[in-house]
């Protein structure tokens, strides 16, 4: 069983998860899991359903509570931050089954991503409308830029719920980018996309990494995407680290084939 050595590679990792345990009731969802992600990397997280991948994301974004272990972002421990502070510290995520607001327009959804920058103070909105309005305009401009960058400018004022699934996924990334993240967590971004769309999506993620200088961690079952996109792959099984390495190494690892990929791969 390959265990990742603590960041021996170049410099301090952007995200470092060390020996994290998580329990739900009587079930131990994560057992001493570790993960290091370096600057500018695209790291793939794969493993059978129920291996604890999304749970790890939830721990990082503080939607689940860590029993033991530490999670650091740029060296700062974040496992005790309140959930709403996580995005402020530079971590943005997307959700497995889409976490978008279907009743709002695309632009509004994306601007929500910048909420922690604009503040959304009720008193401000009431007594200093000009001030909050200026800030609003500024954020809108920036969000429209991001939308244009992702090719969504035409649908900016369309209700998000009426868009095709693939566009919604793209919008969710735009929203994540609006929060000026350093680390982007993508939970099954290719799920439910057709093959052509998956390829497009992969290109988008690469481009976003370059253009916005973000580090990406993604959970994915689509092996084609994982193999072509990721710099490094981390395999989970039954709440533990199973293997780690470059995509081609992992792909041929017998333990991974046995637990996850199946015979045909």
């Amino acid at each position, binding site marked *: 069983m390959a265990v990742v050595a603590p960041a021996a590679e170049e410099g301090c990792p952007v995200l470092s998860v060390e020996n994290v345990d998580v329990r739900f009731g009587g079930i131990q969802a994560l057992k001493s899991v570790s993960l290091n992600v370096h600057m500018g990397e695209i790291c793939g997280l794969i493993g059978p*359903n*129920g291996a*604890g*991948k*999304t*749970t790890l994301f939830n721990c990082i*974004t503080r*939607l689940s509570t860590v029993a033991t272990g530490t999670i650091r972002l740029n060296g700062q421990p974040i496992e005790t931050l309140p*959930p*709403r*502070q*996580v*995005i*402020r510290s530079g971590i943005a*995520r997307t*959700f*497995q*089954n889409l*976490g978008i*607001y*279907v*009743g*709002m*327009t695309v632009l*509004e959804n994306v*601007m*929500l*991503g910048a*909420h*922690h920058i*604009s*503040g*959304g*103070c*009720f008193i401000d*909105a*009431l007594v200093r*409308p000009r001030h*909050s*309005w200026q*800030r*609003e305009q500024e*954020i*809108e401009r920036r969000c429209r830029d991001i939308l244009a960058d992702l090719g969504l400018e035409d649908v900016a004022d369309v*209700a998000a*719920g009426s868009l095709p699934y693939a566009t919604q996924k793209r919008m969710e990334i735009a*929203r994540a980018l609006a*929060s000026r993240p350093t680390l982007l967590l993508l*939970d099954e971004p290719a799920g439910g996309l057709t093959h052509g769309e998956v390829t497009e999506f992969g290109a988008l993620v690469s481009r976003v990494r370059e253009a916005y200088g973000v580090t990406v961690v993604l959970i994915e079952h689509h092996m084609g995407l994982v193999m072509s996109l990721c710099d490094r792959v981390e395999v989970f099984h039954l709440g533990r680290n199973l293997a780690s390495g470059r995509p081609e190494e992992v792909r041929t690892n017998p333990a991974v084939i046995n637990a996850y990929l199946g015979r045909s791969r």
Partner: protein
Amino acid sequence: MNGTRLFQSAPAALVTAVALCLPFLAPDFMLFEFSIAVCYGIAILGLNLLLGFSGQICLAQGALFGIGAYATAILNVNFGMDPIATLPFAAIITSLIGVLIGLPALRLQGLQLAIVTFGVASAFPQLLLKMDWITGGVTGLATDQPLAPKWFPGSQELWLYGLSLICAAISVFMLRRLLRGDTGRLMRALRDNPLIAESLGVNLTKARLAAFAASSALAGLGGGLFCILNGFISPQSFLPMKSIDILIGGIVGGITSMAGAFIGAVFIVFVPGWTTDINPALGGLIYGLCLIAMMMVARQGIAGLPIGRSLQALGGIFNKKDLSRVPGPLPGQLGGE
């Protein structure tokens, strides 16, 4: 996206037009009834903010309304303040108490919150009786009548009606400020899916309590106005059914429509009277049927009726944002492993 425009949709324009024409059309006592409706309308605006826009239910709106009324009465009776000058204080005091009532909302949602707040509404009249050293207990409180100033050429009723309209305009104006921009978005995000909102950095505690505070302030303002209009208040006026009436008004009018708030208020003030006019013995029966029929025809409230919608489409030239509610995924439906 010019949010400073006061009236964005056709129902709003219609309601405003009717409100401004009333003095020419309605006799004094009707004007008085309409002023009462405006009070309720302001309280319903508060409920709209809470239920329609931030997705939290409060069935204590009638109690908060009463707190506003008592704040005005006590400030007037015990401290000799001019009744009109007490209104801002009524709003602020009610807002603070509203935050207290909103505290359970941090843990409870939906049905449970509704029942707990309804409990508050039920206890309110008894609490007023218990605190008789300041509320006057069963005898109630009589306030000074704010007479129309000398320069005002119209009748007393017209003066009070004008006063109510000004309060309503201020409320709508403030509410619009809250609902546009970031605060508006975050409240809708809170309503449609609080978990995602939190992961987007929304401070749920602050946002929920702020919504309660703003909503209660409106209820308090409406209540203060109610006290001024009537000149006398007693616990009997703030029974739990008042909260239910306000809820009915909000939903009948359309829970995400500001114009609907006032339409709903007119409904709860006038319709019970009309139904007893049809037949005193069958009044309640007809009112009950009326409520049921109303909701079967206008499921989104009167402001959401097709006719309202087509008007809205007409007004779409002015209308940039659609604030209507599309049901988002429930927290439990997000799925995941």
